[in-house]
């Protein structure tokens, strides 16, 4: 019992330290980078630069899915500036709109993952929808600096 509690406390401490140590701006950047890498593979297949591979498609979609579901957790009030961030004030000024944009992104990726695209045609249809989210969000919620 004592060991269990100790273990739980250790685990909790570990998790919270991790969260504290995590710099939200750096995390956001690395998450977006991983999406960029996944999109590169996906577009490569769409353009026929590499053969369509259903396993690869699933992997890249799941990479994007993970970001889509967690990205919104890294926008605390104190992360508006610093670290060469390119956030637009609209993320906080129009928090509802930002939430809705992320929800749509997550929904489109979930649909693409669930569709388990077996061939390139099916992949193009669902992946195209996922891609439209990039611009839509960057148009309103990111600024060039």
């Amino acid at each position, binding site marked *: 019992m004592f060991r269990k509690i100790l273990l739980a406390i250790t685990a909790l401490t570990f998790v919270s330290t991790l969260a504290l140590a995590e710099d939200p701006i750096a995390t956001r950047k690395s998450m977006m980078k991983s999406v960029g890498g996944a999109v590169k593979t996906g577009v490569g297949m769409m353009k026929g630069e590499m053969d369509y591979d259903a396993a690869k498609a699933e992997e890249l979609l799941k990479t994007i899915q993970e970001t889509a579901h967690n990205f919104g957790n890294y926008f605390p009030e104190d992360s508006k500036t610093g670290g060469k961030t390119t956030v637009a004030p609209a993320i906080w000024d129009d928090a509802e709109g930002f939430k809705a944009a992320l929800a749509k992104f997550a929904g489109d990726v979930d649909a693409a993952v669930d569709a388990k695209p077996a061939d390139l045609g099916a992949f193009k249809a669902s992946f195209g929808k996922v891609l439209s989210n990039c611009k839509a969000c960057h*148009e309103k919620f990111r600024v060039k600096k």
Partner: protein
Amino acid sequence: MFRRAILFLCLLGFIGGVIFWILSAPRGLDKSLIAELKQQGAIKSEIIAKGEQIFWASGCSSCHVDKKVLQEAKTSEDEDVIKTAKLTLSGGEAFKTPFGTFYAPNISPSEQGIAHYTLRDFALALTQGVSPKRQHFYPAFPYSSYKGMEAEDITALYYFMKTLPESETPNKPHQVAFPFDLRRGLGLWMQLNFYYTGEVELVKTNPEILRGKYLVENLAHCGECHTPRDALGGLEYSRWMAGGKAFEGAEKVPNISPSETGIAGWSEEDIITGLQTGFTPEFDSFGSSMVSVQENMARLPKEDLAAIAAYLKAIPPQER
């Protein structure tokens, strides 16, 4: 005998009536005229179709749509709904500059818009920055670029814009402080920055690059945002496409000249793909106001995008 005579007269009357009816019939169109009219109609629809290309290349809708209406239309994910929103030029978008805030006017073919413009009025506005009432427009309207537009393209654009949806949204007055609120004074700005301007030297030329020059410098007016401006808001032609702090808004504009801090790393194919899809070679996406510009560019034929790419590779490299 008598009955026969009556019958005969009736018959004669009937025949006479038929002859009258035939002789007095209103004539239809001459067959050769029909053919000619069809040809003219085809020419007109050709002009309107060409005008649509000029419209997307010139980016009118990027500034003159009602952004809220467009955002709403985009949530429908229906291409027709989105296109209609992009073609409804109600105006209203605010542009914050060091001289004040400008509001894009309604340029739809309505009473509030430009229904009263003649083709000459339209050409005067685009090439001289002058309104039908003979007043200067503020250079937020990119006539510094449009002034090089060809007559054929101005005509095509004029007739295309007559076909667009009418919007009755009234214009918002610009918020400009003294002395910039005196429009007449803009004539002096034009003396400095409009009538005589620098020429962008090209590293090399060929017909494709020259086509790209026309598309970039005159229609798409890329330099209006991507080229730095001096304190008076004049374009610095010696720093063509060097980017930097935006004159309008609070963002930075990317350097799109072929230098290391610009787009030297992009192949011409990368530029074409970027304009078609909105993705950079590293698969970051385009953002802010470039999204709408890219969506216009994606509607151009691939040869035009290739010409734009060839031109951007032929201008002098600029370091930021």
